[in-house]
């Protein structure tokens, strides 16, 4: 393996994905922190004998560090995320690195695959169309969604050219990251630990970014929320159903529109079905009942199908073994199974004689 081809950015990416500092890596690797720093900064060529120990410490095949794909960060026009305010920066950086790796892996899996869905993602200018709500209505129309609730949002995204990748971010503080880079379909990486109603809102929010924010703007999070609200709960259709707001009605509307009770209350306020004061008292009430932390009456999460079908083709038609697929995606088999074949994970059990 040539030293010239070692990509120091992949080292940084993997280290950050694992949430490891340079000092921690240096200790494990048996080098100094200064050495790690210089290798990452591309000031020092990696000696050939250091590559395999590095790969071993970071739990990837050595080929991982030869990858030359682009790496994108928050704030770049092709990288958006939906997070809560309190998430620490190191965690955010770790997730950013993991998502970049997932994107690289997804791209490798998509090679040699054709997806039959038409590409109906196209950037739309808010100023040209008037408001995020109008963009949402246009997207619904261009996707041919019927009136009423979006029955299966994940299915709608994948039927119109996007791909949803479920992954455990290891925190509940970040819900999703979306990326739309050259040569790949729009990718929406969603935290697999969130409930079904939150997942739908998160994905609709990310859709808003993908359609409206080809160039990042200061107001983009609010705009993405406005898009999500209209996309999942069109004003003309839901306003009448929201009146009057009662607890049993919120539950029924949650089941029908597949959004959280909290989202319905906010929607009722925004559509002036209830006053802002009433909205506040509703939030106090559901908080007292413990519903702010865990809402009752879970919505079943929707499952993406594209990546599952891609893997199925690689296994059945292309004849790949799990180990080969792991190698293809620059990872080791257990990590590959954990991310891409979680249902296979349960099949491996140690059977002890009784």
């Amino acid at each position: 393996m040539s030293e010239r081809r070692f990509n120091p950015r992949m080292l940084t990416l993997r280290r950050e994905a694992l949430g490891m500092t340079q000092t921690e890596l240096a200790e494990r690797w048996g080098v100094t922190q200064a050495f790690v720093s210089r290798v990452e900064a591309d000031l020092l060529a990696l000696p050939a004998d250091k590559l395999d120990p590095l790969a071993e410490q970071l739990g990837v095949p050595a080929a991982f560090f030869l990858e030359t794909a682009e790496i994108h960060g928050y704030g770049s026009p092709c990288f958006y995320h939906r997070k809560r305010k309190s998430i620490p920066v190191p965690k955010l950086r770790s997730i950013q690195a993991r998502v970049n790796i997932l994107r690289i892996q997804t791209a490798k899996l998509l090679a040699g695959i054709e997806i039959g869905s038409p590409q109906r993602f196209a950037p739309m200018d808010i100023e040209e169309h008037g408001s995020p709500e109008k963009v949402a209505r246009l997207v619904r129309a261009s996707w041919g969604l019927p009136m009423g609730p979006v029955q299966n949002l994940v299915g709608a995204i994948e039927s119109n050219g996007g791909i949803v990748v479920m992954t455990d971010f290891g925190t509940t503080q970040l819900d999703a990251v979306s990326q739309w880079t050259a040569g790949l379909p729009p990718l929406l990486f969603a935290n697999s630990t969130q409930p079904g109603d939150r997942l739908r809102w998160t994905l609709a929010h990310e859709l808003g970014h993908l359609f409206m924010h080809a160039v990042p703007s200061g107001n983009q999070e609010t705009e993405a929320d406005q898009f999500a609200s209209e996309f999942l709960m069109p004003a003309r259709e839901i306003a009448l159903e929201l009146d009057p707001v009662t607890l049993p009605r919120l539950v029924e509307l949650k089941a029908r529109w597949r959004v959280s009770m909290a989202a319905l209350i906010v929607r009722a306020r925004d559509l002036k079905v209830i006053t802002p004061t009433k909205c506040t008292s509703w939030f106090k009430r559901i908080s007292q009942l413990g519903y702010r932390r865990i809402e009752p009456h879970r919505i079943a999460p929707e499952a993406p199908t594209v990546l599952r079908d891609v893997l199925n083709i690689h296994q059945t038609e292309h004849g790949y073994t799990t180990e080969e697929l792991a190698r293809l995606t620059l990872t080791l088999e257990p990590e590959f199974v954990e991310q891409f074949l979680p249902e296979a994970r349960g099949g491996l059990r140690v059977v002890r004689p009784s």
Partner: protein
Amino acid sequence: MKHLTTKSEAEGLLLPHVETVQRCLREGWEEWLRLRDRELERGNMYSPRARANIVYDLVAERARAAFDGVEGVAVLRKHGFLVLLFGGRIAMRFKKLRPDLKSTGIRTNQQRLFAEQEEMPGIPATATFLIAGYVLDPTQAQIDRLVVTCSDGLGICWVLDLDFARGRREVVSIGSAIEAPAPPEVRSARKKARAQKEGR
């Protein structure tokens, strides 16, 4: 006034049948949830009163089938509702109850007679009237308690908890998991290229 069956007497009489009573209530409610989900998908929502009537019919039908031919239990349809007669000493009907365990809805004369343990034609005069009831949680979408209550003209005399639900409440799913209408077709590009190369 007739002698009312005590709580411990009722426990003894009902012991062989408690699970069946619970099952009828639970299954009736679950059937309602399935019906509600189907109707919600069509945009139809029912009033609390309509829901209570439907749940009652679903529970009563299950009780009629479950207790038909059971020794020591008679299934009667009297005064517009189903009555289960246990050993001639307990006459039980099904009702939705409020969190304070009182009946909901408009109080009819039949309900008043039942609640006040007054004589009702067709039901043995010595039988104590009990209500097997379900109490919903604040969202009205989940059963919070299943109880048997005994009341007289002054109020509730005793309550027997049929408590399979309480204490192990969980977040239940609502709405059926909806499949994507037509998932995109995913195919091998290599296979296609190979076929083209081979002139197929």
